[in-house]
């Protein structure tokens, strides 16, 4: 938070003000909403002394863009976020400054500069992969639910939100892949890859609902975000 940041990279000639942070959340931080995660990041970056770029107006907000909101109850292994700064900072120094000032269940994996004119992360996103571990349920139950799901051609669900009242979408079309995978006891592993395009995004809890596993204890992790190359 000092005026003269020690983190300036003397070699940089162009002003790189947009940075992409790859991060992981687990355990306690799997239970926050996307708005709350935004605040956690804002405060972490402030503690790290990063010169955050704020919006104009009466209620200035830092410019932070997530690739996709994490559902409440879901951690992540490699989520992406873009952050804009007022003055350039060496990405390696940003990474170092963040270490030790983030909450215990947040880790920063990578920081790098990205071109200002690159499309928003949410526009580049095409799919997300999730690992959902389940317990207190028989593997056969899960397997047969998965088989039934994959064998159905269509699965209409009501859209979320008031303005979509009466509208439905096809969850089956959004699920690109779904299968059981190995997991340590007592878990039964489920792996899925779900569409995550603007206007066509599925969520793992909706898949669990369709599988009739909504009340099953689980640990959910988004393992990968897939961007259009």
């Amino acid at each position, binding site marked *: 938070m000092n005026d003269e940041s020690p983190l300036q990279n003397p070699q940089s000639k162009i002003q790189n003000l947009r940075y992409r942070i790859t991060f992981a959340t687990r*355990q306690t931080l799997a239970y926050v909403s996307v708005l*709350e995660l935004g605040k956690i990041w804002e405060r972490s970056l*402030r*503690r790290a002394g990063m010169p955050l770029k704020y919006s104009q107006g009466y209620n200035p907000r830092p410019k932070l863009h997530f690739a996709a909101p994490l559902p*409440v109850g879901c951690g992540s292994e490699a989520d992406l976020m873009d952050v804009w700064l007022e003055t350039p900072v060496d990405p390696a120094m940003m990474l170092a400054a963040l270490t030790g000032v983030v*909450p215990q269940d947040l880790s920063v994996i990578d920081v790098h500069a990205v071109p200002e004119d690159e499309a928003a992360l949410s526009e580049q996103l095409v799919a997300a992969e999730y690992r959902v571990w389940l*317990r207190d349920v028989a593997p056969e139950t899960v397997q047969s639910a998965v088989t039934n799901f994959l064998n159905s051609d269509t699965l209409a669900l009501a859209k979320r939100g008031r303005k979509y009242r009466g509208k439905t979408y096809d969850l089956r079309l959004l699920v690109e892949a779904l299968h059981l995978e190995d997991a340590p006891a007592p878990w039964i592993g489920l792996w899925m890859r779900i569409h995550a395009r603007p206007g066509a995004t599925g969520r793992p809890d909706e898949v669990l609902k369709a599988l009739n596993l909504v009340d099953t204890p689980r640990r959910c992790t988004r393992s990968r975000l897939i961007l259009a190359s």
Partner: protein
Amino acid sequence: MTNTYHPIPWETIEALLHRVQKPGRYVGGEYNAIHKPWETTDTHICLAFPDIYELGMSNFALAIFYDLLNAQPDILAERTYLPAPDMIAQMRQAHLPLYTLESYRPVAAFDILAISTAYEQLYTNVLELLDLAGIPLRAADRDATHPLIVGGGHGTFNPEPVADFFDVFVIGEAEAVFLELIDTWRAHRHLPREAQLRALLDVPGLYVPRFYQPTGEFGAVTPTDPATPARILKRLLPMLPPTPVRQLVPNVEVTHNRAVVEIQRGCTRGCRFCQAGAITRPVRERPAAEIVESASAILDATGYEEVALLSLSSADHSEIKPLLEALLDRFKGRHVSISLPSLRIESFSVDLADMLAQGRRSGFTFAPEAGSDALRRRINKDIATEDLLAVATEVFTRGWRTLKLYFMLGLPGETDEDIEAIIDLAHRVRRLGLDIGGRKTEIHVSVSTFVPKPHTTFQWAPLADRATVERRQALLRERLRGRGLRLSWNQYDGTRLEALLARGDRRLNVVVEAAWRNGARFDAWDEWRSPEAWERAFDEAGFDVDDALYRPRAEDEPLPWDHLHSGVEKRFFQRDYRRSQAGELLSDCRESCHACGILVNYPGTWTAEWECPEQGVGSKE
């Protein structure tokens, strides 16, 4: 004994979380949370707030003790809050006891469980918390293998309605006594509970209810043996201690989600309804330079984007304007907002709010408390209607569009004309706003029902009856309608319970327990309160609620809280009650000493920092 409790595995907690609302309340992991090694730390303290996480995380007293206790190398302090009803149901079904958010250890594993009794509607939640922790409710049913149950907070100035459930209450400022309590307990930890409690009798400011019994018809208590102090004087710090720096930063949204610096404790205004003002005397200020340094250190350590300056009357801080200038200068360009609660109705306060607004004018709050000049004199709130309108004009002129007006209903001596005066005042303010600021003007009128509290001038007054309160609320609803006017009020069921618990005596313990067994919890929550559970409890105990609520106390009758002394003398309140009935004001006591008792009761503690005027020192009325 405590070593037999292991932490609850994360997987066990995790298995419940998909079934409850806002699971982030139950997992901890906050930045600045302190994790100390259990086995190698001598004394284990659990700090509990008996309501949901969002409220508990906003309680600054808990933050102070978390910091103070964890600063001791041989003490660890962890936190717990009462889960919401959906999580309680899940935990009970899974036989999962209440646990702390740091180590996920069962609360029953701790040596000392300190529970906030910040306000009366928490009492049934205290029972729920103990029960969820697997700890017997009544002190008499516990032994030295159970945590020592300590109560603290404003509610302990009359803890009689829950005296049977606690082992000891801290009277006054726990910062001054907590470590002495722990040291004394340690020196006697291997003795039976009764002997531990007897040892605690020697610590000034601790109230051990076991050694007192009710005498006479009015519910007052007296010591059961000669070694017990007849009266317990609250503990007091001569000066404010340093403010906690590494404040907890919640991961989920909470009620007050910001950094806090307490700039002043106590209040010299002498509003006759105000318990906080009376029991936190004398005034102690934190110097402006220290506030600026603390605020800066806290923001660096937390990343918060807002700092609240806490006090009962912000504008009364003697350096308030230079303080705000210094803070604004220090945080310039760093996107930090500064909030200043409890402003008075005066143009100086408008200046202060204007300095902090930085273009954003969310809403200005006035607390006239009563509608008419006459009733305001009775409650010692010295502001004339015409002055209030002049200040409102200034507020609108400077660009605020929303003005909140706080009133109380059911004040001693109130008539329907005083309600008419509230209505009239709200409409006049609204017209001013419309004339100056236009159609976007909004007036929010909040009318809470007055509850006579112990250790105040109005402690002898009865609660206004339901018919009167509801008739006056209906009058307000009918007349405060229309564009740009919003009205909120309290449900009488909640008020009645608050009044009963605030002024009750030991006979209420059986009632509180019966109500809890009947399902009463979260009595401060309109959506969760259960008046039926309480009604059944009153019937079962044969408790005369009307007598407890509506009988005016005689000035000379013993009161259930007479043995607990805030430093302000009962004689002072008696004189002040008579002044109120005569419509007489009492000036701010920084101007001249009114001999409330603080100075004579703390002769060795007094420092020049107190706002008490020189001539008051040593004086007696």
